[in-house]
């Protein structure tokens, strides 16, 4: 039987891309995007940039190191299913916290 194996340079290029994005995310962490953005969205811009970079890195690992690129269609079904449940977890819990006052956390030490 023939075995499909990606060439060595694919792995090296993916690794180099991951290194590039790692250095990039550290670099942009020191930039305050709120200074360069319209009022209101500035305070979430840094998070949006950092999470977009992390997501890009994760997609590279999943597609190439975890061989989802070139796998049968059932693997993406499992991954998308997981992500949908993560969205449900975050959206429903987030909606609960956003729509009712949160009681202040008071640990024993401060009493």
């Amino acid at each position, binding site marked *: *039987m023939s*075995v499909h*194996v*990606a060439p*060595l340079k694919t*792995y*090296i290029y*993916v*690794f180099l891309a*991951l*290194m590039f994005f*790692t*250095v990039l*995310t*550290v670099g942009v*962490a*020191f*930039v*305050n*995007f*709120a200074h360069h953005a319209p009022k209101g969205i500035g305070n979430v811009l*840094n*998070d949006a940039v*950092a*999470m977009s*970079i*992390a997501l890009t*890195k*994760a997609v590279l*690992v*999943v597609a*190439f*190191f*975890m*061989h989802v690129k070139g*796998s*049968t269609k*059932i*693997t993406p079904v*499992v*991954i998308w*299913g*997981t992500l949908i*449940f*993560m969205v449900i*977890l*975050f959206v429903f*819990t*987030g909606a609960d*916290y956003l729509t009712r006052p*949160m009681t202040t*956390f*008071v*640990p024993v*030490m*401060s009493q």
Partner: protein
Amino acid sequence: MSENSTLAHHFDSYAQQKESASLGMWVFISQEIMFFGGLFLAYTIYRWRFPEAFAYSSNELDIGLGLFNTIVLIGSSLTMALAVRNAALGEKNGTVRNLILTMLLGSVFLVVKGFEYAHKWQHHLIPGPNFQFSGPDPVHAQLFFVLYFSMTGLHALHMIVGLGILAWLTAQAAKGRFTPENHNYVEGVGLYWHFVDIIWIFLFPLLYLFGRHHLT
């Protein structure tokens, strides 16, 4: 079919066997993602609620060590991926060599993590009665460190388990147990190791980088 065939009797072909093994691993990783998801959710809610405490706490972490460990861990993912590639090509020595490199890099990550934990201990940043924090809102700064130790601790635990599995896998590889037709154990352990790498890819910006721009 030869007597020492590595094709289990309930599979029609090696391709089907390989696909089933990978799929099983992906379902396991799926529940692992949900499992970590609870911690990521707790982090999101509390950071949204106490942004100032979290921003100042985040700046207590050593960004240099965090960056170093990120590079080390992604490096270990590369060597793991190369080990799987070697196994798929039937290169026994390459498989063993790359698995050992993966274990070495994983160990370096854990040692650096240990030094970071020791530093937090010395600076009274362990949540509890001896917690001391000079920044604003020390009460909620503790929440950040509770999440920091929970998330990195659970991640480190996964790495320790991974190192144990890798040691077993390396011994199996050295015995020549894996073939281009069936190296599903190597592929499966690889999937687990890359998953642990992805968790860190998200932990690094969330814990180390958030709040950095408040100082600029």
